[in-house]
């Protein structure tokens, strides 16, 4: 009983927000008119129609592929580098300010350099997406590894665990919640980076469709694609956030309050 009530309540807020946003959209449409903001219903119908078209699919695939590759590099590379930096204190101290500095720099300015290095097309997009996503993953992983409770490691040594056992039974469970938070942020930023990469000097993909729509002043298509990307991002983020919360609840019971 309480469980179903709780799940109902957890669903209520997002639904309210969604209703609020659609209302806001409609109001904006009333104020600004069709040439600036098309109404929600026709836009969504247009999106539905667009997704059904055969020529839309290659663009979606292009963006999806670029995003998945960039995500794989961000996650795997980020965790590996993070473990190294977290495990070796001095290396971590040397690298951390550089990474933080790189994180807060507008990376779009580096995009031309990446285009020169990787050429136009898929590799540049992947590299740019990964460049966005990898830094938070590294930073979170590094902190997670650094903050592993020394007592656990000492307990492991007392029980004469092999290195593999230590890794599996102590390090992984102790660092997983924090690393997952990093992966969640890395996910969002990789998506942002991939999309940004497609908006500039691109011949295929959702970003390219967006730019074409801008040139044609096709507001309906602009909005439809923006909604599609946002919906994907928000839903994926919600799923990751749910896993994130569960992991954190398991790790530290008091974390639930914060």
């Amino acid at each position, binding site marked *: 009983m309480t469980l179903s009530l709780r799940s109902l309540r957890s669903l209520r807020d997002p639904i309210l927000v969604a209703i609020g946003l659609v209302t806001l959209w409609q109001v904006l449409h009333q104020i600004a008119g069709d040439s600036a*903001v098309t109404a929600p219903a026709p836009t969504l119908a247009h999106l539905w129609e667009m997704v059904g078209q055969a020529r839309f699919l290659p663009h979606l695939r292009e963006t999806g592929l670029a995003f998945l590759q960039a995500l794989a590099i961000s996650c795997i590379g980020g965790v590996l580098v993070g473990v190294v930096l977290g495990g070796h204190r*001095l290396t971590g101290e040397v690298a951390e300010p550089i990474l933080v500095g790189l994180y*807060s*720099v507008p990376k*779009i300015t580096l995009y*031309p350099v990446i285009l020169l290095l990787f050429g136009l097309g898929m590799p540049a997009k992947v590299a740019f997406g990964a460049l966005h996503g990898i830094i938070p993953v590294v930073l979170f992983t590094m902190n997670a590894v650094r903050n592993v409770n020394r007592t656990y490691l000492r307990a492991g040594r007392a029980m004469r665990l092999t290195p593999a056992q230590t890794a599996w039974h102590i390090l992984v469970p102790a660092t997983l919640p924090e690393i997952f938070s990093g992966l969640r942020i890395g996910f*969002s930023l990789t*998506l942002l980076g991939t999309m940004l990469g497609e908006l500039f000097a691109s011949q295929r993909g959702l970003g390219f469709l967006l730019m074409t729509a801008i040139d044609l002043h096709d507001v309906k298509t602009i909005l439809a694609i*923006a909604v599609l990307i946002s919906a994907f991002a928000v839903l994926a983020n919600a799923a990751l956030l749910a896993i994130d919360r569960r992991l954190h609840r398991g790790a530290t019971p008091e974390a639930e309050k*914060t």
Partner: protein
Amino acid sequence: MISKATIIRTVVLVGAVAALEVACRTGAIQPALVIAPSAMVKALAETLQSDDFGGHVQQTLSAVAIAMTLAIVGGFAIGFVLHWIPFLRRAFNPFLAAYYAIPHFAFYPLLIVIFGLGPAPLIVLATLFAMVAMIVATMAGLDRVPRVLLKTARIHRLSLMQEIWRIRLPAAAPHILSGLKLAVAYSFIGVIAGEFILSTSGIGHEIAYAYDNFDNPRMYALILFVLGIVTTFNMLVWTWERRLARRRGMAS
């Protein structure tokens, strides 16, 4: 005192720049890809003297300044209000949690359609991008005010204003500051990325323009300029934060 890590970091960075210089000078890296760091600095000096440069810099920096101010002030006010009104906060929470998952630049064309070409859509975009970090940080800071401090306030019979001014805000300051830091960085990112993609002026546009014209020296000069300015700004905020933190550490 300079720590060992700082020394190693400096050595690593200087070494990387030197290696790049050598690689470019010897021709291991083509000048069509990356130009030598010394050439970048030289190009930067030339670019700084060119006539149209000042206008672009002024435009970009004033857009960043406006967006930053709006984001920090507005974000703080909204975060404060949401903290005091739990109902509103519950309604907005899922939205705030998902906010940075949305690629905002997808909405940039829309802002152009609404606000026209020019600085307005850029400022709106950067403000929206930066403000939520400030909102979240303000709420997080106010949430984490230790209860014992609030009890102390009650014992001293502080009025509500006094309690907010003397207890809540100082206690929340570290979180609010880290939000401020993010807001500064995000304002820069928002404005320059916007200029880069869709604008007819500003530093971001100049970089894209130089890229399109294969004008590598100018492009690298401008990139260096942007990175330099942003890093300097971030360092300033960081130093300020450190000083506050140290004062707090000594006072308590």
